[in-house]
């Protein structure tokens, strides 16, 4: 039981930093870069990914013994796409302004490689419970990273966090000059590169200590 217990915890926690989907597995980069201009859209996006990832992992794991391997990709894509449609419609109904802002990026979660990557490499060969936790863990790992990037970009770029002013900008009578570079998608690359560097260096330092 102890071993089993640990296994559950590991599949939830490992993807958070050590095996982070973005910075280590190189999965799901497109959305991570495109929607991180501000924290609010990043939060919505992260929630959507967590929900979709956890449930597609769970569903695929439940039907894993009935999937013929020759057409498994198309079947999996259908399951994922259905999950995405449900989430997309929910966001359209309850947060129409956000759905406008995120434009095609919610729909593009279908092709977010995190989802297919985890479904292929984990859910197809593990039990439903483990798969669900793995989905949650990877979703949260993804969320951590994109919210961090979004936080940096919004804070430095506009001087705000969640539209709440932290540094008063010049237009509002303060003395903070908004950094327009952070509004460009390219800035996300540099932030992500530095974060990846930091994470890798930290992991290396830890393994060499052991």
């Amino acid at each position, binding site marked *: 039981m102890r071993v089993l217990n640990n296994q559950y915890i590991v599949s939830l926690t490992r993807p958070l930093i050590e095996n982070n989907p973005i*910075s280590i597995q*190189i*999965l*799901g*980069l*497109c*959305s991570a*870069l*495109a929607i991180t201009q501000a924290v609010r859209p990043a939060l919505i996006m992260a929630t959507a990914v967590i929900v979709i990832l956890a449930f597609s992992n769970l569903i695929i794991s439940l039907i894993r013994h009935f999937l013929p391997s020759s057409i498994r*990709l*198309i079947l999996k*894509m*259908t399951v994922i*796409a*259905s999950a*995405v*449609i449900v989430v*997309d*419609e929910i966001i359209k109904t309850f947060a129409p302004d956000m759905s406008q802002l995120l*434009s*095609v990026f919610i*729909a*593009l979660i*279908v*092709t*977010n*490689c995190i989802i*297919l990557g985890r479904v292929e490499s984990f859910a197809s060969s593990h039990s439903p419970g483990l798969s669900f936790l793995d989905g949650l863990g990877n979703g949260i790992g993804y969320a951590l990273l994109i919210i961090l990037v979004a936080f940096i970009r919004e804070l430095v770029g506009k001087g705000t966090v969640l539209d709440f002013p932290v540094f008063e900008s010049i237009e509002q009578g303060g003395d903070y000059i908004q950094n327009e570079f952070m509004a*460009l*998608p*390219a*800035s*996300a*690359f*540099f932030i*992500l*590169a*530095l974060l*990846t*560097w*930091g994470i*890798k*260096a930290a992991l*290396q330092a830890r393994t060499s200590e052991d």
Partner: protein
Amino acid sequence: MVSEHFNILFRAAIVENLVLVFLLGMCTYVAVSKNVKTAFGLGLTVIVVETITVPINYIIFEYVLSHGALAWAGYPQLDLTHLKIVTFIGVIAAVVQILEMVLERFYPTLFKALGIYLPLLTVNCAVLGASLFMVQRNYQFTESLVYGFGVGLGWAIAIVVFAAIRERLDESRVPQGLRGLGLAFIVTGLLSLSFNGLAGLEF
């Protein structure tokens, strides 16, 4: 008319380059850009896939999914637009599958070189993204054909340039933790910045 189409092509390929400006198709872009030859093959494949899927998806969207498109069948109120994601991805998966068979039969060397990345084109955001943008911008048939080709061309240009830079970078000395992914991000960032400088350019 012609210049309008050229404008769409130019915008899709350079000014609004899907990888470097909209940041779509990033995973494959970073993963398959280690040498120019493979990158070139993949670029060509993406051009073919985009040029086929965008117009097909246009036809399906216009005549089956869009609001009132099924009026001739007695369903004037039917609106199936929410099914576009599933439909588009299905079309893309089918086209990629067919292309895979064709390549295997007629171009076995390219087929081997592309390996796993060919089926992965199904989950390339740039391919699905192009179809979704086509709907969002209300393109007509010929426009969507030109747009599909332009998007593919832009993707191919971007990945070949990036692969050429990376080949050189292999020989340079960079900090351990920055090697590989980190450096790839920085290079893409610089490329992306330079493409952003073209924003608003028109003929």
